[in-house]
């Protein structure tokens, strides 16, 4: 089972990201579950959402405490929340950052090479979606980095959820995230 935890702030689409990923996994023919950890339900407050993907039906409904993948939508959370709690030794970290991995500071994450990736997801979202919502960019990057879902399933999930220009913008943002990681892999 692949377990993912999303960290962000209220209004950034954290819950939507986890749900889109679960729908994409479902389109891939797998079992998936997504749910939020509701905090104070305020714009800007730290928010978590969880996703599980497996080939067998998923029974547990408890929060993901030992994630295989962390998606950090807002780098300012690194100093306020224990984002890395329980992260698997061979886990992945995707960080929305304009300054590469610099926001991680001196924190040496004992993860395999290439498992910690940073990308300017908000800037890419502004470019392709026109709104500062890093979620779809990070989902595209996640698909490229972990192969948790196929990019085509992700865009299909986006198109189930949104219509018109919003769907197109989200697809473009996801594709940009996917290419950002994919291009770096082949550089």
């Amino acid at each position, binding site marked *: 089972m692949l377990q993912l935890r999303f960290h962000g702030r209220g209004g950034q689409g954290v819950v939507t990201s986890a*749900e889109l990923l679960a729908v994409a996994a479902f389109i891939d023919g797998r079992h998936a579950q997504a749910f939020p950890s509701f905090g104070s339900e305020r714009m800007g407050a730290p928010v978590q959402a969880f996703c599980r993907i497996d080939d067998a039906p998923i029974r547990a*409904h408890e929060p993901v405490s030992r994630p295989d993948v962390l998606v950090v939508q807002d780098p300012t959370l690194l100093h306020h929340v224990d984002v890395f709690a329980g992260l698997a030794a061979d886990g992945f970290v995707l960080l929305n950052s304009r300054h590469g991995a610099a926001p991680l500071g001196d924190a040496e994450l004992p993860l395999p090479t290439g498992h910690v990736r940073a990308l300017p997801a908000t800037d890419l979202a502004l470019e392709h979606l026109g709104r500062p919502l890093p979620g779809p960019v990070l989902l595209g990057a996640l698909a490229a980095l972990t192969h948790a879902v196929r990019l085509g399933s992700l865009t299909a999930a986006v198109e189930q959820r949104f219509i018109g220009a919003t769907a197109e913008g989200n697809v473009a943002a996801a594709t940009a995230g996917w290419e950002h990681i994919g291009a770096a892999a082949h550089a």
Partner: protein
Amino acid sequence: MRRQLEGSRAVAETVARCRPQVVAAYPISPQTHIVEALAGLVASGALRPCEFLNVESEFAAMSVAIGATATGSRSYTATASQGLLFMAEAVYNASGLGLPIVMTIANRAIGAPINIWNDHSDSMSQRDSGWIQLYAESNQEAVDLHMQAFRLAEQVELPVMVCMDGFVLTHAVEPIDVPEQEAVDAFLPPYAPRQRLDPADPVTIGAMVGPDAFMEVRYLMHAKQRLALDLIPRIAGEFAATFGRDSGGLVRGYRLDDAETVVVALGSVLGSIEDLVDARRARGERLGALAIRCFRPAPLEQIRSALAGASRVVVVEKAFAVGAGGIVGQDVRLALHGTGVPVHDVIAGLGGRPVTAEALDPVITRAWTGELAELTFLDLRRDVAERELARLPGAIA
């Protein structure tokens, strides 16, 4: 056909396919998505004929459901937490009058302190109201239980609460099959009440009843609940034959064969418990789980029979009787009366504190080694509680 759906959306679509003629609700977290979706289905014309009443309170919601059902309309509402408490007076009237209302409880803690997260304090507070109470382990079961609930309520002439864990299920997106309209219609015939309020053929429903007959009316409620003990498995059996899913019924055992230790629970926490059973079974330990799917009527004989081989029982429950102990645990002790099997109450997950397999694992070990107290509060920060207790006037340090 299975779709990846939010639990609330799936329940709303299912309720719509049960063709309620009246939906009356007041929004409260975490029930809100259910009634929002139903309001949308009524407004769009997808659900008709149906009147959606966005009432001014939960008390009004239940009162409208009572009136509508008394005139012969299939009625539905949903609430949680303080909403259920505010509704309580009318809740008792619905069951006393034998009106087959179906209500979803999106289980949530009761304040103070104010808390929007999941536990079972709300539905457990209405334990003795005369309503049948069913608990869903998953969103699929929540869907299935709603279809069964209308059948059950209308056949036994009692209202039914379908309890699903707030946020944990209501806000979880999972693969769910919402049966097609034709299949629901075949399973659930239109509501045909024995009697109803009709100016053309007047009857009185809800007259004052004095000491000469009150006891009989209350006894009838109890007797009907006991009859439901036969009806509930029959409906679940018919449901399984039609839809191919084991949903509903009274209790469900998980790997109970030869189990020495059995964990009893209700609701969504069973998923983690079953994962724990599998993990410990893989180590050769004889652990099993028992889901109480129907809490009221209390399936005492079925609990006793399911636990017949157990040497010890651990009841994990998300509510408690303050000043006494477990609530579900009391039922389990009653079921096991005279067997001498020890029953341990583990109060867990109050106000949304996650109940994890990792936290339950050492509790099971302690039950095995005889170190588990009769009453335990899982993950309680005892130091915090004791510091506050020490501040009581007259506290002995």
